[in-house]
């Protein structure tokens, strides 16, 4: 029975794969727990008076990325060379969330767009595929799209908190993001779908600027710029 022998090898192969997949899944679940805590902290910026406590919120979240870096490196060690995309689905979600967290934190600190390299550094992975466990471009972009969505919410709450300049700046930032994304020739289904949502985020902030404009609440350009 040559057939039997041929298949016995596969049994070992499949068991090993299953074990590996299980280990990766556990590592990822562990990271998700951290991400969830960071998320809760960062989102408190939306709460009453939260917008005024931005600096202190950022300060408490910022160091938490060290833990993330460590855990991501442990995760990376589990994955065999050149097999990143074999198990990609398991950590895709949490990496996108981490990219979002890094991008949101950076925005809150400096109102700038975080670069791919910076995200990679903050969450402790490589930038380039050739170097191993890296930040997939798709995941970085997904993080930015989540950022746009969160910012449209922030614009609403900024007005509530009496900050009329911030929505104007957010509108420009999201407009830039939109222009950037429009350059991309997206095929990927989930990225494309999320990108379709950007249109609504942009529309939302445009409408807020409109609301401010028509009521004469829009600050002048100097006031807008001075963060």
């Amino acid at each position: 029975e040559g057939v039997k022998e041929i298949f016995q090898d596969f049994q070992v192969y499949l068991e090993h794969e299953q074990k590996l997949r299980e280990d990766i899944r556990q590592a990822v679940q562990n990271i998700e727990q951290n991400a969830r805590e960071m998320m809760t902290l960062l989102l408190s910026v939306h709460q009453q008076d939260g917008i005024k406590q931005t600096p202190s919120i950022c300060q408490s979240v910022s160091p938490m990325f060290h833990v993330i870096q460590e855990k991501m490196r442990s995760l990376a060690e589990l994955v065999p060379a050149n097999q990143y995309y074999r198990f990609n689905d398991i950590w895709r979600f949490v990496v996108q969330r981490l990219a979002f967290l890094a991008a949101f934190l950076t925005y809150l600190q400096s109102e700038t767009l975080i670069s791919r390299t910076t995200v990679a550094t903050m969450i402790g992975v490589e930038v380039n595929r050739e170097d191993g466990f890296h930040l997939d471009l798709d995941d970085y972009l997904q993080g930015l799209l989540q950022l746009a969505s969160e910012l449209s919410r922030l614009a609403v709450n900024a007005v509530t908190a009496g900050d009329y300049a911030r929505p104007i700046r957010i509108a420009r930032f999201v407009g830039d993001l939109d222009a950037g994304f429009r350059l991309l020739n997206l095929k990927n289904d989930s990225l494309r779908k999320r990108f379709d949502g950007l249109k609504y985020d942009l529309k939302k902030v445009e409408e807020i600027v409109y609301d401010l404009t028509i009521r004469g609440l829009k600050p002048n350009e100097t006031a807008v710029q001075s963060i």
Partner: protein
Amino acid sequence: MADEKRKHHFDKRDRRGKRKSEEKVDESSPVIAAFRGYQQELDERYDRYERIIKLSRDVTIESKRTIFLLHRVIGSEDREGLLQQAIDKLSEIEASKFRPIAEELKDEDIYQFIRAYTSGLQEYIEALTFYNFLKNCGLIKLEDVQKRLTFTAADDSNSDETQQKTQAPVDGHIHVVIPPIEYILGVADLTGELMRLTLNSVGKGDFETPYKVCDFMRCMHAAFVTMGSMSRDVVRKTTVLKQSLQKVENACYTLKVRGSEIPKHMLINVLTCASSG
């Protein structure tokens, strides 16, 4: 191939250049600059993916044709000729489709592109193992299939471009790596063809093939049952495999009960009639 590639890239630069002058996009913005880079990266990946998909689609079509051709072996007078035609077709697929795929995959993480060529690869494995079963009555091993999809690195004019872009493998070979699971799934599909083969054999008066296939498929079935629910695909294909096996078992049963009616002295007569009819 390489020329075409270069042309393709050139086209793109051209297009982009033209666009630059026309567009209302603020090129000084760092966001825009970054996204221009992302665009290029995405385009490259998507283009590669598309090229592989196209090659894989061709592989699927040609492999299916090879399988159809192989079914004609049963009851044919030119068994060897047909088998030769089939292996020629398979070699042609390897040279004209898999080699380009291997070039595309060189130094890439194959799992990033596996979905682009998995269906072609499985269909090819199905065809090759089917050929091998007809030829040698056994299962060709994964290593042997892998050998067929291993090519010596091209030494032609465009090697410099390739060299620049990536590190050439030390052994001077490029491969289409076959993950074991792909091999297993391709082999699972083989059983469907074996079932068709059996039913056709019975029709054509070939009384040996069914029993041979039946034995072979029982071994396969046992192997798949033992593997179990490691992967959803495997479970699904195990179900199909069992159905095919039962069809083959039924065919053997039919042969047996019908065979029981032949008066011994007529047996040879019948067999000769059947094979000439």
